[in-house]
């Protein structure tokens, strides 16, 4: 049976047999880094293509179809174009911050990758406060965005960055609360423990209605946090041209673009992990035979399948809901989502204490 | 514990009262009732009556001194509500919230009178001061009020930072936040040459000096007191300041020895500086409100004597008397000041002819602040000085003499108001004087004089 765990173990053993432990460790660091960057590149290419194809399907048209079969190399071509373009720095810009910002956004996206479990026993760092780590690091991307918007010396950029910042900071609260409601059920902050606790069913099924409510809130909040439509005020084309990255071009623009898709992937991966068991196959209570059959599907397939399913959901939003106004957006968070998620958390705590979940 | 819980609850009740009614006089009456209940539960606490059993893990320790101090401050607040309730309603459109903030502040005071742990002291100081930053800026349209609020907030945060640094150092030296072990661990033989603990205490000392506006740290006081809406100045200058002193005493009553020799040098310097800064500057003021701000600094100088004397019973009795005398008199004077049309000295011209009763009460209260015999202020000042002599013997006689000289200076600027009221022609205008207001003033004047004649009445209560 195919498993990523087998590959890593083989590599680990081979390295340790042939080199000293320190060198092996260093090599592993490098390998992890290379793998992460490769994953980023692949995800970026894949997700952009997916977005365009999904949009095309929603609008009953073909979408990219010239470069490669079904236009699959379209994004590769686009990326090559962007790499070859000149990276301009506006005249009145704060040069240092302007050039630093895309890297900060990128680095933050990479850091969030650390505690995510891609498959059974396939995780870069099983930190014991994984969930908190996720929300801490993801809140840092705001700084990169604000930096980019301010350093551009452009009012559209600044306004876009402000909107984006306000949005991320406020929606982070309800995203955090819905994450915590799963933590309440599990009793652990470690990603690995959360996944293992879903061995006899995913939380979205086991946690009754509160879990479902927190899933809905989570998905709304992360859509807003990643500045996706219908919450894409930060880059509302009709108002702000392109938002905080108006002034960026070439590779730096590509980095922002990439980071956006990476962030979508990451939040969907978190959602899949918390509510749909991550790499845990679909298990139902005591149906031993069924569970056994499900185990034959490799865990990495489960993880990526669920994540891509959620990504599809978020892309679907984009073509379904009209864009909100900024005051509607903030009202939605502070007057509806936040109180609901607080009450939901209390409900969840009661469920957890009384042991009403399965 | 009753007082802490009920004042917090009363704050919440006040917040909600704003939802149910827009009628501000109902809100004011709710606040008065809530405060009366608060006084009642605190009295119950004092006499071991009904007490919500909370295991505070020795973070809070309740004693009679603290309860009694609570009672005095709550009663002063009650009189403040009775006299100035109407004026609180006029400050802005958030009457219910203002009362809520005042109750939260009282909750902080209740924590401060019972803390047994530096953590609780920090919490108490913060709960007490944060509502004040808001109340100072309550008059949102007034730039002076905004400025005062911002100034107070920035300076207050800075002093809180210093306090936290001090607490951290004390923690570093002793390994815990509890009060009693600090001195034993620091002065004990084991780590006798430790310097970190005293350094931390010194920083906490500086921060508390800020809170009570003692001299080198008093610069915020006039601006804040002047800029804040007058009703809230009245609250800040009296009840809050007295509570700050209580925290001061409680923290240092057994710990001044940790600062060893320096205590006997630092304290007199601060006392003299405070008296000097307060009294001399007050002489030159043209606005009565600003004069009262400086006079509150001067009065703080007197209250510092009890910190200097630390831990003797005369001092404890003295601070109770002082808190009562000073708070009552200042609340009364402010209540009159708020209703004056003109806040300058000239605004008081000829008040005696127009409103003889109010002028008479104002005179009594001013005399009490100046420390003239037969008023509460005299005994308050007397106890302070007696406490210092009791603690330091003849070596502090010079300090006492200086204090008396400054008290004489203070007579000058208090008498300027009296002179304006009685001996100058003019048409001072007082607004909205009704019988309830006069009755409230009468009670305050009666309390001041009765404490002034028989201070033992108040003090005996303390021992029973």
């Amino acid at each position, binding site marked *: 049976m195919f498993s990523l765990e087998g590959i890593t173990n083989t590599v680990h053993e081979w390295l340790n047999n042939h080199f000293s432990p320190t060198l092996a460790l260093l090599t592993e660091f490098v390998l992890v880094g290379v793998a992460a960057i490769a994953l980023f590149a692949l995800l970026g290419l894949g997700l952009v293509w997916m977005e365009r194809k999904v949009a095309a399907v929603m609008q009953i048209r073909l979408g990219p179809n010239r470069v490669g079969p079904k236009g699959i190399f379209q994004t590769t071509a686009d990326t090559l174009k962007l790499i070859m373009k000149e990276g301009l720095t506006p005249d009145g810009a*704060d040069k240092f*911050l302007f050039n630093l910002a895309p890297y900060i956004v990128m680095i933050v996206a990479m850091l969030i990758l650390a505690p995510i479990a891609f498959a059974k026993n396939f995780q870069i760092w099983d*930190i*014991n*406060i994984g969930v*908190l*780590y996720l929300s*801490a*690091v993801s*809140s*840092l991307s705001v*700084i990169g965005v*604000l*930096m980019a918007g*301010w350093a551009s010396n452009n009012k559209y950029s600044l306004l876009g*960055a*402000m909107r984006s*910042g*306000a949005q991320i*900071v406020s929606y*982070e609260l309800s995203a955090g609360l819905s994450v915590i409601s799963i933590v309440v059920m599990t009793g652990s*902050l470690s990603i690995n423990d959360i996944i293992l606790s879903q061995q006899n069913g995913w939380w979205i099924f086991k946690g009754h209605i509160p879990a479902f409510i927190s899933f809905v809130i989570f998905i709304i909040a992360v859509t807003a946090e990643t500045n996706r439509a219908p919450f894409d005020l930060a880059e509302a084309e009709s108002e702000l041209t392109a938002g905080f990255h108006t002034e960026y071009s070439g590779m730096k623009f590509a980095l922002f673009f990439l980071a956006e898709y990476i962030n979508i992937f990451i939040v969907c991966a978190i959602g899949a992990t918390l509510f749909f068991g991550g790499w845990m196959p679909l298990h139902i209570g005591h149906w031993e035979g069924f569970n056994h059959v499900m185990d034959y599907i490799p865990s990495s397939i489960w993880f990526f399948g669920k994540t891509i399913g959620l990504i599809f959901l978020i892309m679907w939003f984009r073509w379904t809901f009209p864009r909100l106004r900024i005051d509607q957006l903030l009202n939605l968070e502070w007057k509806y989502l936040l109180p609901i998620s607080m009450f939901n958390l209390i409900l969840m705590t009661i469920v957890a204490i009384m042991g009403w979940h399965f | 514990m009753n007082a*802490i819980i009920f004042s*917090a609850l009363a*704050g919440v009740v006040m*917040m909600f009262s704003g939802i149910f009614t827009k009628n501000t006089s109902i809100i004011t009456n709710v606040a008065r009732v809530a405060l009366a209940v608060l006084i009642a539960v605190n009295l119950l606490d004092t006499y071991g009556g009904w007490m919500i059993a*909370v295991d*505070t*893990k020795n*973070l*809070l320790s309740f004693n009679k001194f603290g309860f009694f101090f609570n009672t005095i401050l709550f009663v002063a607040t009650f009189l403040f509500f009775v006299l100035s309730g109407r004026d609180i309603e006029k400050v*802005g*459109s*958030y009457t219910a*919230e203002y009362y*809520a*903030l005042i109750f*939260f502040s009282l*909750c902080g005071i209740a*924590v401060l009178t019972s803390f047994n*742990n530096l*953590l*609780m002291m920090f*919490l108490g100081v*913060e*709960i007490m001061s*944060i*509502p004040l*930053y*808001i109340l100072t800026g*309550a008059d*949102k349209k007034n730039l002076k009020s905004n400025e005062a*609020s911002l100034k107070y907030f920035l300076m207050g945060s800075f002093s809180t930072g210093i306090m936290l640094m001090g607490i951290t150092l004390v923690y570093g*030296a002793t390994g815990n936040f509890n009060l009693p072990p600090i001195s034993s661990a620091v002065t004990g033989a084991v*780590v006798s*040459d*430790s*310097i*970190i603990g005293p*350094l931390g205490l010194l920083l906490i000392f500086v921060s508390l000096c800020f809170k009570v506006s003692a001299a080198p740290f008093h610069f915020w006081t006039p601006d804040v007191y002047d800029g804040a809406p007058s009703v809230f100045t009245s609250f800040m200058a009296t009840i809050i300041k007295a509570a700050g002193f209580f925290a001061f005493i409680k923290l240092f009553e057994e710990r001044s020895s940790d600062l060893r020799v320096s205590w006997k040098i630092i304290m007199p310097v601060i006392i003299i500086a405070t008296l000097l800064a307060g009294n001399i500057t007050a002489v030159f003021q043209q606005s009565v409100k600003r004069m009262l701000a400086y006079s509150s600094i001067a009065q703080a100088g007197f209250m510092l004597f009890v910190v200097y004397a630390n831990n003797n019973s005369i001092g404890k009795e003295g601070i109770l008397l002082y808190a009562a005398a000073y708070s009552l008199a200042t609340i009364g004077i402010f209540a009159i000041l708020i209703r004056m049309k003109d806040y300058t000295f000239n605004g008081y011209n000829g008040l005696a002819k127009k409103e003889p009763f109010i002028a008479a009460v104002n005179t009594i209260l001013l005399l009490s602040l100046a420390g003239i015999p037969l008023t509460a202020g005299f005994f308050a000042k007397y106890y302070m000085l007696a406490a210092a002599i009791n603690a330091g013997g003849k070596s502090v006689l010079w300090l006492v003499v200086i204090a008396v000289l400054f008290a004489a200076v203070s007579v000058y600027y208090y008498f300027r108001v009296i002179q304006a009221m009685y001996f100058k022609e003019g048409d001072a205008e007082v607004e909205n004087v009704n019988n309830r207001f006069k009755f409230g003033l009468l009670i305050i004047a009666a309390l001041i004089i009765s404490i002034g004649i028989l201070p033992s009445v108040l003090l005996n209560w303390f021992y029973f």
Partner: protein
Amino acid sequence: MSAIQILFWFLSGLALVSAIMVLISKNPVHSVLWLVMVFFAISGHYILMNAQFLAIVNLIVYAGAIMVLFLFVIMLMNLDKTSDPQKNWWMKLAGVISGGCLLMEMATLVRQAAEMKEKTVMMKEGSIGLIGNLGKLLFSDYVVPFEISSVLFLSAMVGAVVIGKKN
């Protein structure tokens, strides 16, 4: 020098340099960004002391929330370099002297302190900083201050509404 010591010195140096840069940066936005660096360095120190929860909370609260608000305000105010009020030269000198005195005093006092010489911070040991233990302590021994601090936050919230709401 072990890896932990190298990390410790690196983080301390980073924290100090960033803190100094906060003060000497001409541009307030740069100052805030340097301050974020300080918080990162401090969080690193917490992790070295095995207080992961504190480290993360430090990041969430300070770097993620408070500093973002700082950036918001400063960026919207659009302060430029020239609007920095020039202080009197004598005031600056007085500030430097008095601040320097305090620093010197504290430095000498801390140097003299006997008990500091043996005691160093516990690195990578102790479990008090882990979230489970912290939570248990917070809800048993320190439950009273924990609950009372809710009054503090409530009053701050009421205040924020009073100040912020339009009449």
